[in-house]
């Protein structure tokens, strides 16, 4: 199946028309994740991709200069909604959007999710049984006191998680979760998602909150493999509404210089080939039906009885996530989450 998809995609690309021109991309995503795809796109279309990897400054750039780039690609699709609200995006006109699962396309076609990954739990294989874990809310239970690890509450991944919870479960439950989680932390939040898994490996914590695809990335590195091997991924709330996901996405800016080229690049990112690339090399999940899950991801959740990595996802509309940022920030400040 995988080979078939790849073959079909390559034929599709090989048969595409060579255009020429330039497209300018601004992104907060990691360079190594996008560069190979852009190189292939340039080779096949003749369209030059000029990219700036701005990191955290992407939003400041995109809001102060909405026309300097043609395409915005963000690792947190919530940012695209903020840009839409600030009038920095324009409607995408592409038939490709019809091939994407409906919940991943903005109702007004202002941006589109390009891939997603569950924000689940990593737990110690030796010290925690998967039966002990269940929902996000359960992680706030006093039985986990001093055993949980998480990165800064203000980091965009956690902000997105809390905002989705706020939208889906309401402010009371979200506040209770954040308060309980804070009480159960073994140390004030610090480091990135992988640093939390390392804390489990070093037996400082038993459970951490993190994006599941880090398991694949850790297992691919000699120095971090022991951390991955000491832990397993748990998809929360599989008997209920499902695990919250972090969506990456893209949108066209209001620049009118290279709309056609930017649309072509966006279509390429949504093509079967690029979706297959995202899924198999970055261990994320595709927004299209029929794209296989990576071999690594197929092992995730085995401990809780999930087969083939096919977990139940709770998709919260991106439009509803960003509006809760202020309320979530207030709760985080109230409970002194990072202190």
């Amino acid at each position: 199946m995988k080979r078939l998809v790849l073959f079909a995609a390559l034929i599709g690309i090989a048969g595409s028309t060579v255009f020429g021109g330039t497209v300018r991309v601004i992104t907060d995503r990691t360079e190594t994740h996008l560069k190979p795809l852009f190189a292939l796109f340039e080779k096949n279309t003749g369209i030059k991709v000029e990219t700036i990897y701005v990191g955290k400054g992407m939003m400041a750039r995109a809001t102060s200069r909405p026309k300097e780039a043609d395409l915005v690609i963000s690792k947190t699709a919530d940012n695209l909604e903020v840009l839409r609200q600030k009038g920095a995006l324009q409607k995408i006109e592409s038939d490709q959007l019809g091939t994407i699962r409906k919940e991943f396309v903005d109702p007004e076609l202002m941006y589109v999710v390009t891939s997603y990954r569950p924000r689940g739990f990593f737990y110690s294989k030796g010290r925690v049984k998967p039966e002990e874990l269940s929902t996000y809310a359960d992680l706030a239970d006093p039985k986990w006191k001093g055993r949980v690890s998480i990165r800064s509450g203000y980091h965009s991944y956690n902000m997105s998680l809390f905002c989705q919870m706020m939208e889906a479960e309401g402010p009371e439950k979200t506040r209770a979760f954040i308060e309980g989680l804070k009480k159960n932390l073994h140390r004030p939040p610090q480091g990135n998602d992988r640093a939390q898994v390392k804390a489990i490996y070093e037996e400082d914590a038993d459970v951490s909150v993190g994006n599941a695809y880090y398991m694949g990335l850790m297992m691919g590195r000699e120095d971090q493999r022991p951390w991955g091997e000491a832990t397993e991924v748990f998809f929360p709330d599989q008997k209920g509404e499902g695990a919250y996901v972090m969506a990456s996405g893209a949108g066209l800016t209001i620049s009118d210089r290279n709309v056609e080229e930017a649309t072509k690049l966006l279509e390429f990112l949504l093509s079967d080939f690029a979706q297959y690339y995202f899924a198999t090399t970055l261990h994320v999940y595709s927004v299209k039906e029929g794209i296989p899950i990576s071999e690594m991801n197929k092992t995730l959740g085995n401990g809780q009885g999930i087969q083939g990595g096919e977990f139940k996802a709770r998709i919260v509309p991106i439009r509803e996530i960003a509006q809760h940022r202020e309320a979530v920030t207030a709760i985080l400040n109230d409970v002194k989450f990072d202190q």
Partner: protein
Amino acid sequence: MSNLTSKPSPLSLTFLVGHLLLALLCLGFLAPLGYLIREAFLSGRPSLISEAGGLVFSQSMTTLTLLLVTVPAAVLIGTGSALLVSRVAFPGRKLFSVLLCLPFALPPYLLAGVARQAQHAGWLPLPPLENLFGCGILLALSLYPWVYVPVKAQLSLQSRQYRDVAETLGMGPWERFRYVHAGLMLPTLVVTALLVAMEVISDTGTVTILGVKTLSVGIMDAMFSMDRADWAAQLSLVGIAFPVVAVMLFALWHRRRMEYQPPNRPAAAPLHVPGPMGKVFIPLVLAVPVLGGFALPVFRLGAWGVENFGRIPLRDLPGQLGDTLILVALVVVFTMGPALGLNLLLRWIPSLRIWKGLVWLMNLNYALPGVILAIAVLFLSAHAPESWLSDTVVLLVLACVCSFFCFPFFSIQSGLRSISPRLDDLSLLLEFTPLERVMHLYLPLLKRAVAGGLLLVVVTLVKELPLTQTLQPFGFEPLSLRVYSFAGLDLLEESALVALCLIALVLYPVVALDRLISQPEGQA
């Protein structure tokens, strides 16, 4: 100052142009600070103190604790090693004198990245680094040359006569150190400690890699995660308060003290000859900061470079090197020129000294965390033509000039103080034009000061990160960006050769700076 140079009529062209130029310069340089103050106090939204006072307190305390670890450690390493290489005759003294300044060539975020990867992979039995103490020690290893080089220079100015006089007064070695050498070193120590403190406060790379939540991380969180520019501005002002208060306290303390510099090249102080144990022990002790701050990380990068040679394409490297050099060249030109011009204006037209306070204030830009300075520049230029930002390095150069202006400004200011005002009178009597005065009088005498400021700009700029990261135009990627993007991902092996290239680029300016500052006039 003599009459000939000092009193242009209030209606003369020189007077008016001078004031106008200074007003424009102050306006430009103070604009980022103005933006911060506007955002901090005029946003009309609840302040960070009222909404999350605890967070500000916690981040301030973390910053303060980091300062309390880093600054004393950097001062201790810097002063201790400077004293040893300046005052004690041990094997390899001259070699160590140079080696000890090499960690200056390594950006702190690169050291943190290598150390973190080395610890994760178990190459070195390092204690946990992802905490305040680990971060403080790594920063100290990176930043101690800020203390070492100037203290070594100050020690080279302390002549043999001091020792002779102190001995005549019956002082023992400890009393001599306490009342003579330490007293003379103190202003240098305070200033350099302040520089280290400013570097720590504005650091974003190292603290991010090691997960330490200082004010600069809080600023990024407020700006990028919470979308609260007002809170980011308020935190920045808290961050600036640290160096401002420290500078003011130092100024108050220093006000009534006389500073004596020997007019001529002093006779070198005699070297203390240690015993056999000392001859072995001292090089070993001095090897620690050199190994930790430079040799081991460079060796590790070299090993990665060899392992990956041929596997990682280096086709972008010439472009990255070119971008770095272009940025350095432009920033050097646009800092050195205005710094010299401003100092000369202040010297020639005494009435301009009413601007002195503002001029001092505009040099505070260096204390602004780079990320907030970058955002201020971004939003201040929101109405400029779009292509300014996306196609050229104009904004990046402007931001770098704002940030690094203080180096050449203070260096040239200090150089000008040593030029007698009588030379100005003489040049006027000889009917030199202002340009002739600059070319034939000041520049030859200011060579050392200009070179010092220039080298400092080069050394800090090549390693600069937050401004470049936020303001990079399309198709522009200096070496520092490439190195940091991989350091943050624990993938330094992928950019080891680029990192080595960056270090090689800074190495000569670092050694030249050390020689320039440490050796007496005429020898450098």
